[in-house]
């Protein structure tokens, strides 16, 4: 039986990818960001999963205004890093896990969550920046990501985005789906995006460190209550793009009901326009 053993939470700022790809990691500005992931890269090596279920949002890359799925699961064998306008990131292609992904799709849809099944999807910085942060810089041709990845895209671009409650319950459904897969796979689930940031209008640059840290506290200790937070609170307190944080609740809902072990916690302002938050939680039961 497959099992979710840990969850990882991290911001997915595109400038972090650019800093890696353009060799700026030694600059003091970026050192302060990457220092927070030194522990995480070692932890990934010591706790290599068989599959990563990676919750992220597509930033008008694979999905234009022609189609806007609320929840989309990738069941393909392979995903290509997208050209978001600056040219594709020079990182390895992402290998999928079609069998587990298809199993999760079937199980979760039968638990009443209407997922969109995607067999062709280029993946943008929302997916590749967290991989780079956790796995370090890799050569796009010579290297490979450490394991297969199941991309799970959530609409947080066009309002309304799914509620925190919906995301948390979806996480629980994903947990049941993984646990009913009959191969003994070690699965990690990642929730990405956030933390506080706003990329638009005269309020661009909004950061709310107190709110972010309270969010991290509550995600660890009382995620179910945190899931009740309405959208407008995210927008008002954490900026219009802070709404991405609902995706963290999917990963948290997929964890055990027992309190997790906090392996790592990091918070830093800024990376470009954004507050960087990062957690690693391990399941105890």
């Amino acid at each position, binding site marked *: 039986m497959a099992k979710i053993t840990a969850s990882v939470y991290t911001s997915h700022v*595109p*400038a972090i990818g*650019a800093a890696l790809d353009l060799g700026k990691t030694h600059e003091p*500005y970026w050192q302060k960001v990457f220092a927070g992931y030194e522990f995480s890269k070692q932890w990934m090596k010591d706790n290599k999963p068989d599959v990563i279920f990676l919750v992220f949002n597509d*930033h*008008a*890359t694979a999905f*234009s*205004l*022609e189609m806007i799925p609320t929840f989309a699961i990738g069941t393909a064998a392979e995903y290509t890093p*997208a*050209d*978001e*306008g*600056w*040219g594709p990131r020079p990182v390895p292609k992402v290998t999928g896990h079609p069998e587990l992904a298809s199993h999760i799709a079937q199980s979760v849809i039968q638990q009443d969550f209407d997922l969109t099944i995607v067999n062709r999807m280029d993946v943008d910085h929302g997916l590749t920046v967290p991989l780079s942060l956790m796995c370090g810089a890799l050569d796009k041709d010579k290297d490979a990501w450490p394991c297969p990845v199941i991309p799970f895209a959530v609409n947080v*671009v*066009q*309002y*309304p985005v799914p509620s925190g409650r919906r995301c948390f319950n979806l996480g629980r459904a994903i947990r049941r789906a993984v646990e009913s897969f009959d191969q003994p796979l070690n699965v990690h689930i990642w929730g990405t995006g956030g933390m*506080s940031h*706003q*990329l*638009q*209008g*005269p*309020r*661009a*640059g*909004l*950061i*709310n*460190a107190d*709110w972010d840290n309270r969010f991290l506290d509550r995600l660890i200790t009382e995620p179910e209550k945190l899931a009740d937070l309405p*959208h*407008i609170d995210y*927008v*008002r*307190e954490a900026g*219009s*793009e802070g709404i991405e944080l609902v995706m963290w609740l999917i990963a948290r809902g997929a964890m055990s009901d027992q309190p997790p072990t906090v392996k790592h916690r990091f918070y830093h*302002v*800024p990376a*470009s*326009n954004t*507050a960087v938050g990062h957690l690693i939680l391990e399941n105890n039961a």
Partner: protein
Amino acid sequence: MSLDKPYLDVPGTTIFDADQSRKGYWLNQFCMSLMKAENRQRFLADQRAHLDQWPMTEAQKQAVLARDLNRCIAEGGNIYFLAKLGATHGKSFQQMAGSMTGMTEEEYRDMMVSGGRSVEGNRFLGEDGSAQPQRQPQGSAPKPGF
């Protein structure tokens, strides 16, 4: 029944909802075309001619030509789509975000390094934070746009 919009009282903020999406459909779809290198080259070679191939409004085209992201958003644009326009002009996300505040690149970068924009006074319209309409523009950028 019209859409419930509890977010209209947040200053300096436009939520990309179904009404905005409908208004900005072709502006945003034009931006999507800039994900291909050949389209970026074609656009840069003759911006007006390229825009005229899209069923966009004149106001949308003028906002794009002026590289004024606040105007683009008012015309229905969404920042993740508009980012392709910025990328085509060689701009980073920070340069794009900063361009909507009236600050110079340096002023905006300094604000972020100092911890970002405070939420105090910026939660509701009618307060007196830096994002409120009565406080615009916020910096010494010579003109709107990037």
